[in-house]
């Protein structure tokens, strides 16, 4: 064996290299404060390895980026852990870079002859931030999409070359395939390549000039191996443990709903360590943006780069230290302000909730038997009744109606309720309430509408109020029979169970005893000239589609219609949109049957981690 190593050493000289690496002199002996560089090298190697592994499964394109990341996260073995490792190590790197910078400045390690090494470190800092910025877009989710849009819009105000620069970065004038291919090329190819070159230079220069010892030296000089190596290893382990803690705690990295330029996203925020820049922009009124976005950050960078020169001056080191602390305090303060401002904004909190809801929902849809169509996952939410129904309701119906007391999305509309609350429309409970003398003219039903003074309310308040026990029992059956017309998914078990009662109930609706058919039509029964909506198929999909489309149709309210517009003929909603509201009101949307098989898939994600 020895013969082989000697043979190899004669041809490569590796022994000398290993010796130099391990027996590098550490002036004053091993210390914890020297570990930062090693932790960064460790993190970078994790990023390269996890990045390559992600690359194996990632596909840059507007219909494939989110989809492939979804697949990594939710379908591939341990994909969520891999993404989590990449995501949280990136964050750890940013924190460690700041620690490393602090240590270098505090120890005066930027001074001659180490200027060039210091600058290469500053460049590395910027390159790592660029990695983070480009990586944020790659999952092509709403958050990354909108936050990156802010960043590329800012690129456009760069003097002289702004608009061209923006086009080159975005790969055209709009976000699309080429934005992703470009960001991916930068993120996975160009920037890491440059970083590797700079790391080599950085370590070479570091070895050339040696460590900057922290005075006073407490112990005699020692070799790098084993004491400093042990300390470095322990520090790397600590970093890894923190990262793993976050991965487990938050079930890997977040994946929002697929990017959609036409879908409002008010929860757009950059990664937490860019929040200070984001906050800074708020303080520059129209036209002065360039100061916050470019000039001030550039000046701060300028001072950082000038540190080696400033350090030569008698008070220079003090100044540098003061500057560093002031800059960190400023960044901290701005981050804190951004955070507290968001936490105090009900709109922002609502936006985050709806973002989380969409994110969770799209996963459910992607895992449905239909899967993700080739047009991309963005179409899943666009065609989903549970997602679109409430939005359409809030926009088109909630100025009069309510859904469980709100506008469908959880807010209170400006106008007072003036038509029925449609939560559970046509269900047994809902009809029971309508036929309850105490409730029929409440705001929940007809209290706010023209029908308040109509025949139905009168009938309920006068006739039904007088019902004896036997009639009340019949009324119960009638309700069950009528509600079965709707064929609601939520009632299907009860409807199957109560088939006999339903048959009786239907007869009661048609019977003259109950008086329904005096005004309504019900299948074959009822007047020739009904003055109230046809109850045949009441609340069924077909009935509700036709009703929303045109409530003034003779089949429904005819001329007695109150204010409700004819959404179909008046082209207020498309047929597809009416379908979505109808399905949502009827509780008809895709739900997974049972829990998917237990595997390495993490449970649905939690509240945002940052």
């Amino acid at each position, binding site marked *: 064996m020895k013969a082989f190593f000697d043979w190899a050493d004669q041809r490569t000289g590796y022994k000398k290299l290993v010796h130099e690496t391990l027996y590098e002199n550490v002036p004053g002996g091993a210390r914890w404060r020297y570990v930062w560089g090693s932790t960064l090298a460790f993190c970078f190697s994790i990023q390269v390895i996890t990045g390559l592994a992600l690359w194996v499964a990632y596909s840059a394109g507007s219909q494939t980026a989110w989809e492939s990341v979804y697949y990594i996260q939710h379908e591939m073995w341990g994909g969520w852990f891999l993404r989590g490792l990449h995501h949280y190590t990136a964050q750890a790197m940013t924190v460690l870079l700041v620690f490393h910078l602090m240590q270098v400045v505090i120890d005066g390690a930027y001074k001659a002859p180490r200027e060039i090494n210091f600058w290469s470190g500053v460049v590395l800092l910027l390159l790592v931030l660029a990695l983070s910025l480009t990586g944020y877009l790659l999952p092509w989710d709403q958050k990354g999409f909108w936050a990156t849009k802010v960043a590329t819009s800012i690129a*456009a105000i760069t003097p002289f070359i702004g608009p061209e620069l923006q086009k080159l970065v975005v790969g055209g004038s709009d976000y699309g395939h080429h934005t992703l291919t470009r960001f991916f090329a930068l993120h996975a190819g160009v920037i890491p390549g440059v970083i590797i070159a700079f790391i080599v230079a950085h370590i070479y220069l570091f070895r050339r000039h040696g460590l900057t010892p922290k005075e006073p030296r407490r112990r005699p000089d020692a070799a790098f191996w084993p004491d400093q190596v042990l300390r470095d290893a322990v520090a790397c382990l600590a970093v890894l443990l923190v990262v793993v803690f976050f991965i487990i705690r938050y079930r890997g990295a977040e994946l929002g709903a697929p990017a959609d330029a036409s879908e409002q996203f008010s929860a757009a925020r950059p990664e937490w360590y860019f929040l200070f820049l984001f906050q800074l922009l708020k303080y520059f009124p129209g036209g002065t943006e360039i100061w916050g976005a470019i000039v001030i950050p550039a000046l701060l960078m300028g001072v950082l780069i000038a540190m080696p020169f400033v350090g030569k001056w008698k008070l220079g080191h003090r100044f540098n230290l003061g500057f560093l602390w002031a800059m960190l305090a400023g960044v901290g303060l701005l981050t804190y302000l951004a955070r507290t401002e968001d936490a105090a904004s009900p709109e922002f909190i609502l936006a985050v909730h709806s973002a989380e809801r969409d994110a969770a929902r799209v996963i459910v849809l992607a895992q449905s038997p239909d899967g993700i169509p080739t047009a991309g996952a963005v179409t899943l939410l666009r065609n989903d009744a549970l997602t679109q129904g409430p939005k359409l309701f809030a926009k088109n119906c909630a100025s009069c109606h309510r859904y469980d007391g709100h506008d469908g999305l959880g807010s209170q509309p400006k106008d007072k309720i003036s038509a029925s609350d449609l939560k559970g429309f046509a269900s047994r409970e809902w009809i029971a309430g309508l036929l309850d003398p105490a409730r029929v003219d409440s705001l929940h039903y007809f209290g706010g509408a023209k029908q308040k003074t109509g025949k139905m309310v009168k009938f309920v308040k006068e006739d039904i109020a007088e019902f004896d026990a036997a009639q009340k029992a019949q009324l119960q059956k009638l309700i069950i029979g009528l509600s079965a017309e709707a064929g609601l998914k939520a009632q299907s078990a009860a409807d199957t169970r109560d088939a006999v009662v339903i048959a009786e109930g239907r007869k009661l609706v048609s019977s003259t005893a109950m008086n329904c058919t005096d005004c309504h039509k019900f299948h074959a029964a009822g007047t020739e000239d009904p003055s109230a909506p046809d109850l045949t198929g009441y609340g069924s999909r077909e009935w509700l589609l036709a009703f929303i489309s045109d409530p003034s149709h003779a089949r429904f309210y005819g001329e007695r219609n109150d204010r409700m517009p004819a959404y179909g003929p008046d082209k207020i909603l498309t047929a597809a949109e009416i379908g979505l509201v109808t399905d949502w009101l009827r509780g008809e949307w895709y739900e997974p049957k049972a829990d998917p098989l237990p595997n390495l898939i993490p449970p649905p994600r939690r509240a945002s981690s940052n």
Partner: protein
Amino acid sequence: MASHDCPHCPPPTPPDDRRSFLAKAAAIIIGGALAITAPVAGLFVFLDPLRRKSDSGGAVLVASLNALPENGEPRKFSVLATRVDAWNRSPNVPIGAVYLQRVGDKVRALNVVCPHAGCFVDYRSAKNHFFCPCHNSSFALDGQVQDPKSPSPRGLDDLVVEIRNGTEVWVKFQNFRAGTHDKIPV
């Protein structure tokens, strides 16, 4: 290996100045040509987006007049048109969104994109104004900047609207450059 390591090799001859100059020049020229071929080939493709124009075509039917509240409250609509994304052409997909509102018997259309840095502006009915959830720009109903401290350099971008056949609201949809005082189409 450097020549002094080789005991049998003749010592290097001092270069002849003229020949050496030619050799250097030739080496530099050939080396230069070798070095630039690949980068130049790459540069063309890299710069290609500069000649791409946004396909802001003609007017698109966005909504029916009936869908707009009489009281002039803005409503948000997706703009459906043919979207060209590099090699893909997708007809009838959302390419953006607008706020439409009645102004007398006319209709005003505002692009939802904030002219500051591109966020999606929110209509807040409680305050009856537009508000950008990113850096807090606020805009009046007509799109003008409301709070002078707003970071947006201009008001919301209004778009050309045409009413056809009595009730059809057609909008000439366009995006504009963010961060500039003037409205420059992209």
